[in-house]
Structure formats: C-alpha cells, structure tokens
C-alpha cells in the first residue's frame, strides 16, 4: 500500500430514484494513506454515493475503479472482497460477546467443528498491536465506551483486510474526549496507509483530520479542496451555494423584565459549581462551552428533569418545581439534546407528538377532545411548515429537520414563557435551520425567555443576543451579540480569557 496512490476512483456515477436524479456525474477519488472528508448538506448525495460504493444501491451509470481496475460491486460482499468497509452510525456489535468474538462473528475459524479461540485471540492481538489500539481482546463489548466500540468496529473491518474504511458521522454519539480518541485511531490508520472516507457535518473535525475534502451539493461534486484550502467560509459557501448572510448589526432587543428566570449558586455533581445568571423575556440567551461542560445538566435542572445538589432556581420570583408536568403548565418547554431518544415518540404520528404536551388544554376529565387535537396539530403543521403536511405520518419517517420542527412545534403551539433548547439544530439541514431560528426569534419577540445550548459556534454567535460561556463548572465569560466572535467564544470555552468577553 504505497501512499498517495489512488485507491478508489469513481467516474461519472449517475443515479436516479423514481426519475429524480440524485447523483450526477460524480467523480470521487480516494488515495492510500489519506483521510478524505466528504461534506454536503442533507440530500446532497453523500449517503447515496457511499451506498453505491458499498454495493447497497445499484448505480444507473458510471464506473468504479479499485487500484485502477474497473470493478463491479453488486452487493456488500463484493465491496468487502474489494477491501471496502463501512463503519455505520449505529454500531453492528453484539454487546454480550467479547472483542475477539465480535471481530470474528460470522467468519469464525474452526478446527474439527470447534472454535479456535486461542488462534483468533492471537490474531486480534496482533491486529491491535499493529495499529497500537488500546483495547483488550477479551473485554466484553458491553463494558466498553463508545469510542472503544468504534475501535472494535474498525478492527472488524481491518480483520477483513479493509483498505478503504468509510465512516459516516462517527462522532455523533461520542463525547469530546472519546472523539479525540477516535481521531488518534484514525491518524494511526492513515499512517499505516489505509484510505479513509470521512463523512461529517462538523467542520472542526474535518479541519483536524482530513487531507482533502470533497464538497457535494445537489448530487454533484462542487469542489475538491486540499488541506490548505479548507476554511469555514469557503466550505460553507460551497455547500450552500451562497454566502452565509451576515446580520450582525441589528436593532436593540426589548427586554420583558416581568418575565424572568433567576438561577442562584446552582451546583450539580462534579459538573456544576456555583452557577448564577438571570435571563429576561425577549432575549435569546446562548450558552456556550465544550461538550460535557455541564450545559445540558444546567437546563435539565431548570426544566425539572434533574435535581440540583444546591442553589435555587426562581421563575418570576417563585421557586421552580421539580415536577416536569407542573413546569410545563407554568409555560416551560424543553427541546432535548437527543431528539430520537427524548424528543419524540417515533412510531406515533405528527399529531400525537405535537399534542402530547398540551393535553392539559385539549382534554376534559382525562378524555382527549379528538377534533381539538386535530385542529391543534393542523395549525402547528401549517405555522411551522412541517413536511409532509400529513398529521398522520409517524415522526420516525420524517427528515431530521422536520422531526425537530415537530419537537419545537409542540412547545411553540403552547406559547411558552421559557423555552430551553439543547443543540437545537444538530443534523438539521441549512434551509430548516433558518426556519427554526425564525421561530425562535419570533417567540422571543413575543416576550418569552429562550435559553439555547449550542456547540455550533456560528449558530451561537449569530443567533444569540447574549452568550454565557461555561468552563470548569461555572460561567467563565459573557459576550454581547455585537462583540462575540467564534474564535473568542471557543477560546473562552477552553478556559482562556478574551478581550471581547467580560470575565465573570
């Protein structure tokens, strides 16, 4: 595997679904020993091209070359035989089995009908040694963290002699520390000459890892950038096809002083130590900080989903209850971090998901007024432009952006007084993002308090009226909308004081 040689090349890949062209003339090239990033908005065709390379979809035109040789890849086995492996977002490991058993599952080595456990373990150990992974071949997968589980997935791919490893949003379920571990793993793979196709929404990761970046838009490749050419502005421009509009200068916000949330000396486990702030109606308060810095716990305490160890939370002068139902009636709402787990009920319809928090208004004596509920949902679908415009569609079938509109719509339709948002636009495409920001702005203007936790620096600095950055369990610096820059917020989150921010 000499470095720099072309590993995989596609030429003029063309694909249609029901007459709609989803990939047009895609020429992708991945070399040995490079991390090749692939970016694009949702629907740009990233997943489709991956599925064609790995034999899940059949292409309608074009050619695939591996090591310069034209190959036919008709199913997953063909791809595997050519050394192409995918690490999926949902891992394909069996928790009850050990690392070794997982790696050899489905391709066990037997002698006279018995498993050759020792031999398999030695092979895994050799593989682990070669890539300098830190993992015990006898550890039960259930006891491993997410980053280590991904290592096992990667080992599994390598055990099948994978030379091209495709990773689709691999950090989406990892903490910051675990992501860092994964990046080290990827660096190790690159050093050994493997090719990696890395699909991600996160520019900081792409910047950290990739040697080259292919940007896709509307089923076409719009650019292939070298490491030196990768910067936020260029990439977003290429992805979106237009300059992100700058709207920094803007008129002052009216604060509604009669709607206020006060948090005093809040502490929670090791994460929060003495957190205090006051938020008023009319403003969008952004909360910045690194992943795992306690931001999520802070808003969960406010909502009543977690119980603080010390300190108090006052809403318009009254202590906040620890009962979520009561807080919802007071006008609270929460858009949680992981919408799939906590945000909505996947098998239930849009209607049921929107109405679920409003049964206090939609029912009498415990019986839901069906027509009222339908009207309630129809109104929300219209107001928030949820697609498809069919209230009976299960939310699981919606795109990420529309799922989030459902979760947000549930609260907006109640005219909440305090809306807590945790990473509100993760996995949401750019068009829907703008809609979500509009809804938030309108709600704020109507007098509600909005508190938004976000790791997306662009979002944080552009949408928030005020930003509090968390570090070491307390608020570290405060920024106003006008003086917040992405760099300064990131610096503050890492524990460095900045000129723009006000130290707290």
């Amino acid at each position, binding site marked *: 595997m000499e470095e720099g040689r072309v590993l995989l090349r596609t030429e003029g890949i063309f694909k249609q679904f029901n007459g709609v062209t989803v990939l047009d003339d895609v020429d992708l090239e991945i070399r040995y020993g490079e991390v090749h990033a692939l970016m694009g908005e949702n629907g740009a065709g990233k997943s489709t091209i991956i599925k064609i390379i790995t034999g899940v979809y059949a292409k309608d035109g074009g050619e695939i070359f591996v090591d310069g040789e034209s190959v036919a890849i008709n199913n997953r086995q063909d791809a595997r035989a050519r050394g192409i492996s995918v690490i999926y977002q949902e891992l394909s*490991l*069996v928790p*009850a089995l050990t690392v070794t058993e997982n790696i050899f599952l489905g*391709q066990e080595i037997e002698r006279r009908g018995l498993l050759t456990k020792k031999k398999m373990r030695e092979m895994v150990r050799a593989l682990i040694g070669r890539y300098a992974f*830190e993992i015990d071949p006898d550890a039960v997968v*259930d006891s491993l963290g997410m980053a*280590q589980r991904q290592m096992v997935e990667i080992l599994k791919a390598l055990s099948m002699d994978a030379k091209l490893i495709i990773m689709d949003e691999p950090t989406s379920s990892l903490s910051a520390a675990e992501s860092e571990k994964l990046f080290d793993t990827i660096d190790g793979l690159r050093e050994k000459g493997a090719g990696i196709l890395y699909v991600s929404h996160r520019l900081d990761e792409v910047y950290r890892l990739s040697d080259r970046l292919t940007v896709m838009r509307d089923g076409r490749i719009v650019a292939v950038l070298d490491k030196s050419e990768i910067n936020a502005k260029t990439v977003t421009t290429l992805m979106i096809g237009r300059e992100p509009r700058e709207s920094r200068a803007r008129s002052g916000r009216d604060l509604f002083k009669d709607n206020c949330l006060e948090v005093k000396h809040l502490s929670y486990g090791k994460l929060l130590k003495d957190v205090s702030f006051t938020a008023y109606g009319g403003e969008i308060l952004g909360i910045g900080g690194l992943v795992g810095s306690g931001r999520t716990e802070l808003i969960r305490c406010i909502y009543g989903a977690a119980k603080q160890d010390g300190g108090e939370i006052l809403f318009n002068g009254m202590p906040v209850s620890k009962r979520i139902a009561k807080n919802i009636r007071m006008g609270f709402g929460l858009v949680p971090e992981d919408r799939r787990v906590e945000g909505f009920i996947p098998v239930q319809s849009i209607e049921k998901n929107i109405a679920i928090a409003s049964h206090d208004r939609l029912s009498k004596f415990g019986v839901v007024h069906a027509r009222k509920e339908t009207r309630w949902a129809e109104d929300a679908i219209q107001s928030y432009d949820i697609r498809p415009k069919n209230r009976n569609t299960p939310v699981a079938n919606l795109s990420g952006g529309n799922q989030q509109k459902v979760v947000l719509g549930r609260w907006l339709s109640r005219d909440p007084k305090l809306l807590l948002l945790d990473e509100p636009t993760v996995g949401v495409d750019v068009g829907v993002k703008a809609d979500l920001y509009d809804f938030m702005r309108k709600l704020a203007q109507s007098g509600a308090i909005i508190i938004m936790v976000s790791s997306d620096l662009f979002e944080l600095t552009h949408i928030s009226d005020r930003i509090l950055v968390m570090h070491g369990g307390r608020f570290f610096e405060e920024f106003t909308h006008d003086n917040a820059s992405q760099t300064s917020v990131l610096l503050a989150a890492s524990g460095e004081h900045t000129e723009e921010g006000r130290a707290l």
Partner: protein
Amino acid sequence: MKFKIRNKTVRRIVSIGLVIALALFFALSTEAFLSPRNLFLLLKDSAYLGLIALGVSIVIIGGGIDLSGGGIVCVVGILTSRLTFTGLPGIVILAGGVMLGAICGAANGFLIAALHLTEFVATLATGFVFTGMGLLFAYRSNGRISGNLVSKSITNKSFLAMGKHINGLYWITIVWIAMTVLSHFVLIRTKFGLHTYALGSHEKSAEMSGVNVARQKALGFVISGACAGLASVMVVANMGASAASLGTGYEFQAIAACVVGGLVLGGGKGDTIGAFIGSIFMLLVLNGLYKFNLPTYWQYIFQGAIIILATAFDAQFAKFAQKRRAAESAAQTAA
C-alpha cells in the same frame, strides 16, 4: 492487574448458595430429607424438569421463549408408550421419541423463522396442538380418557430398563448431567454456541455480521423440542406408563427454573448450567415442602414467590453489574 470476579461468576455463586442454603434448611428441619433415597429421588425429579429446562434455556439464550415444552412431553410420552408394544428395542424407541420431539420443535421453528410468528404466540399455540395430539392417541377405557396414568402398563423390558437406576442413581439423572455438560461445551466452544449468544444479545448486529438468524432460531427450537422428547421418554420409562396429564405445567416450570438459574428473558445471558441449578432449586422447594406435609397449594405460592424474588434480584443485580462495568470502563478510559 487486580484480581476481579466477573459478574457472571457472582450470579452463579448466588444461585448455588441458594440451593445449598435451602438444602441445609431442609436437612436440619426434616429428618427424611438427607436420606440417600430421598436425594436420589430429588435428582431424578430434577432431571425430568431439568432436561426440558435445558432445551428451553438454549431458546432463551437466543432471545426467544418456548411455551410448548409441556405439550411436546405429552404427545411424545403417549406415542412412545404405544410404540413400546411393537416390541422394538428401548434404544430405538428412545431415538424415535427424541426425533418426534425434534420434529415438534422444527414445527415451532418453521412458524417463527419462516412465517414470522412471534415466539410467544407460536409456541403457546403449538403447545395446545401438541397436548391435543397426545390426547388423541391416549388410551381410553370405555371410550373415556383417564386423567391419570393410563391403565395399560408398559411391558417392554428393554424400554423399562431406561427408567431404572444404578446403585440408586437413575439413568435419567445420568443423561441429564451428561447433556448439561455436552450443551455447555457446545455453547462455549462452537460456532453454534457463539451465534446463539449473538442472536440473543443483539439480533440485528448478528445478522449484519453474517449470522444466519432464521436458521439459528429454528435450530434452538429443534433442540428444545428434542430435549423435551428425551425427558418424556425417560420419565415414561421410569413410570412404566404414560398419562394424559403428562407434561402439564412443565413449560412454565422450565422457564421458572431458567430464570432462577440466572438466565435472562430477552437473551444473551446465562448458560445451561444455570438451568441445571435452577431445576434442582425448583424441585428442592417441592420436595422440602412435601416433607413438611404442606398442602400442594403452598407449592404454587412458593414457586411463584421464588420467581418474583429471582427476577427482582436480577433487576437489582443488573444495576449493580452496570455500576461495576461503568467503573471498569472509567478506569480504562483514565488509563
């Protein structure tokens, strides 16, 4: 590296400890309990339940459930007792009974793997069917099926020999122990075993890794059926007759034995040794209560209570195990 006891081992120690504690209690409080004769009988009765539980445990490890065990025991028992009058050697009849049980299990497997019925519904239904088929062939006196032992006693000597004992140790007990050892070996050392655990722990992942999930599921039911068939033949040989009520309730007793022995409904955890210990435990309770001359309804109440306690313990234990794992994982990340 610090010596660490695996969670599995802790659970095993707990179930063995329970058996010993209960046995000690009965030994101290009743005189008849510790007599060799009573202990051999206890092991014989445990073997009957234990063989069924052994088969069921393989289905449970694979993430399924088998409610047809009692029905299979019934139909196999009645058909083999008829077969004895053909004069065939006992070993052939044994093979026929096991085969018949396996065919019943294959029917379950077909419904589940090919027609995609849920395990619970499929085996609940076939359990009825198998029991009914047993009764269809049961001996009748004056056109009526006798509820208890059918009047016609088995005379086939080579068949009856399988129901005898060697110095007090019954053949069914020997077969049970051998089968437990064999099945444990198969589960731990073969591809079949590995795939069973994979199936029960995470079906989707197993499928993604190339495990033939449908075949694996069906095989589990075939084994479970064969084990029930084996239990049935051995117990009929011991009783020297078959009964229309043969096997009634044993499907649930077997599941209870598995649960007590540390198998988790939902799959991926436990082993056939657990089912072995669980079976002894269930019979120990029955035997001990019998020695106290308590009415039979107390047995039901005790058995029910045991299942509740065992599952409640497992729920608490799972939390404890989770904590241990988390601590371990944190230590790893730190290192």
